[in-house]
């Protein structure tokens, strides 16, 4: 693992875009942790309570006191945006991690062993790709009910198939390598073969995809939030804020702009970082 960390460090030094991405990703992660810790310890880490009304004038434009302005109920937009950050970040990481775990194991087994299991997985994912993920998530969300945790579950349910597809393809490439045959000749059992040779060798590609994909999860989650499936009032959420503040597009354009901007910023961070890693990997 040490060598991997060193690789990442040298990448960040040589690729300015990737470094910028890493800074954004890190800043989001740290802020989220601080906010989460604040909630757990009952400390207020943001300037104002995100739900307290009339902390400033109504619909005030950005100022020193309220860097992102205030909304129609006089709530501080900056505090609301920071307070909402952990939702998006956590959903991104959790959903991608679960998809990565499920997809890489299923995909590797299917790719290496073929047969009926492979056929089933392929047909299942075929059908799956014909369904719009977001709409499917919405339908399942209707069943589970709204809430951030539920959205995590919903997205985790629909998110793994592309990972399984990718892992299968990569595993097939690995399967044609002679070291897999050599491992069979060494008496390795299926499970060991996959965990010792296949998954370590496809992990690079999958991790790059996952890094890029965290952004996509955040985008999709914000979509679910936008239609009101994620967070209950009065707690803030970026997607929900854009949707709620749409009404003030004319009178207070900063209201929908800032939360939207935060979503973009987060996604850009993961894209830059993922692209950077991908580029260095392909150079090899």
């Amino acid at each position, binding site marked *: 693992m040490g060598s991997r960390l060193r690789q990442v460090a040298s990448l960040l030094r040589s690729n300015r875009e990737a470094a910028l991405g890493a800074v954004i990703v890190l800043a989001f992660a740290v802020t989220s942790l601080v906010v989460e810790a604040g909630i757990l310890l009952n400390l207020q880490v943001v300037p104002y309570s995100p739900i307290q009304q009339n902390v400033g004038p109504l619909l005030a434009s950005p100022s020193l006191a309220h860097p992102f302005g205030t909304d129609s109920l006089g709530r501080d937009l900056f505090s609301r945006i920071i307070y909402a950050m952990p939702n998006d970040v956590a959903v991104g990481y959790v959903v991608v991690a679960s998809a990565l775990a499920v997809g890489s194991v299923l995909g590797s087994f299917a790719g290496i062993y073929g047969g009926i299991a492979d056929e089933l997985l392929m047909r299942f994912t075929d059908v799956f790709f014909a369904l719009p993920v977001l709409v499917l998530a919405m339908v399942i969300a209707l069943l589970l009910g709204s809430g951030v945790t539920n959205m995590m579950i919903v997205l985790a349910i629909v998110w793994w198939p592309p990972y399984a597809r990718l892992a299968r393809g990569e595993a097939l490439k690995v399967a044609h390598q002679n070291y897999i045959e050599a491992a069979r000749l060494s008496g390795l059992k299926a499970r060991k073969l996959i965990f010792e040779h296949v998954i370590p060798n496809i992990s690079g590609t999958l991790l790059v995809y996952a890094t890029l994909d965290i952004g996509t999860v955040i985008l999709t989650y914000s979509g679910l939030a*936008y*239609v009101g499936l994620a967070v209950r009032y009065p707690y803030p959420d970026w997607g929900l804020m854009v949707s709620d503040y749409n009404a003030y597009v*004319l009178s207070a354009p900063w209201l929908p702009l800032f939360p939207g901007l935060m979503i*973009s910023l987060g996604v850009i961070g993961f894209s830059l970082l993922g692209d950077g890693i991908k580029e260095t990997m392909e150079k090899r």
Partner: protein
Amino acid sequence: MNLLRFALRRLLFAVLVLASVLTITFVLSHLIPGNVLQAWLGRSAAQFPNLAAAYAQKYHLTDSIPVQYFYYLVNMLQGNLGISPSRGFIPVGQVISETLPFTLQIVFFSFIFSLAMGLLLGILAARYYRSPADNAIRLFYLGGYSSPPYFIAVILLIVFSFYLGILPSGGAYDVSLTTPSIITGLPILDSLLEGNLAYFQSAMVHVLLPSFSLALASFGIITRVARSSLLEVMQTDYIRAARAKGLSEGAVFFRHALPNASVSLITISSLIVTFLITGTIFVESVFAYPGMGQFVVTALAGLDYPGVLATTLVFAVVIVATNFVADVLYAYVDPQIRLG
């Protein structure tokens, strides 16, 4: 004919996928908390006992699951998609036939914009690889596909509608105009066929912002794929061999590189359509465009299960149809599939 056989096989596959989708929606409708009737009619089941009874009979809701499944399929295939509580208990099929044409209009125009913009910028970025132009294009598309479509819609709304005031802020046409009669079902096309130019102009102006929002959110994927597959193709042996013939760079690019790179663009195009059709959910609500996307949002808010399930089905049909077209196109372009 190999291509024909291939197309038929893909068609059969498309039908099977749709059958699976139907099954999934059926299963989901049974997973909805409470009894099935409640699921289909929402909280209003108790309010309108007559309706509930008629509904239960039509869908055989008191029979065994396989029987229910059979009648569910029969009803769906006949276009009986249920009744929409969020739209005052009118049949969902009617809602969809009113809203789908508007959604398709947005999807069509945003696809054209997205493809044109994506291809053009992708080709430019590949030809001027690692130049300032390439970097600028990359920054542009990165911003585009990292932003939620509704956010882009809000920005466009602020700029073009409120700030510049050159495009309308919402709706699909000027309501004071006479609507065209139904020929193809698509208002823009119908008005053009009918010669109702006033309506045509108004509808075009209204469709611009929503479809452009979606195009901005999606063209990046095309640019990215076009750029990378062009760069990849330019590295191949056959490009080197074409250069060795003495072909000019332009001939190498347009005669050999571009056609080969377009193969991967076909696959990505069908993905774009999926993205666009789900994207309408967001931009239609921003622009109050009376399409299916907006209906989904109200249906979700009103716990209108039949509405949501039926729109899922319709979305799936559109996506499966696009995938089918893309598959056949792909096979047509790649001789190995066409003839193999």
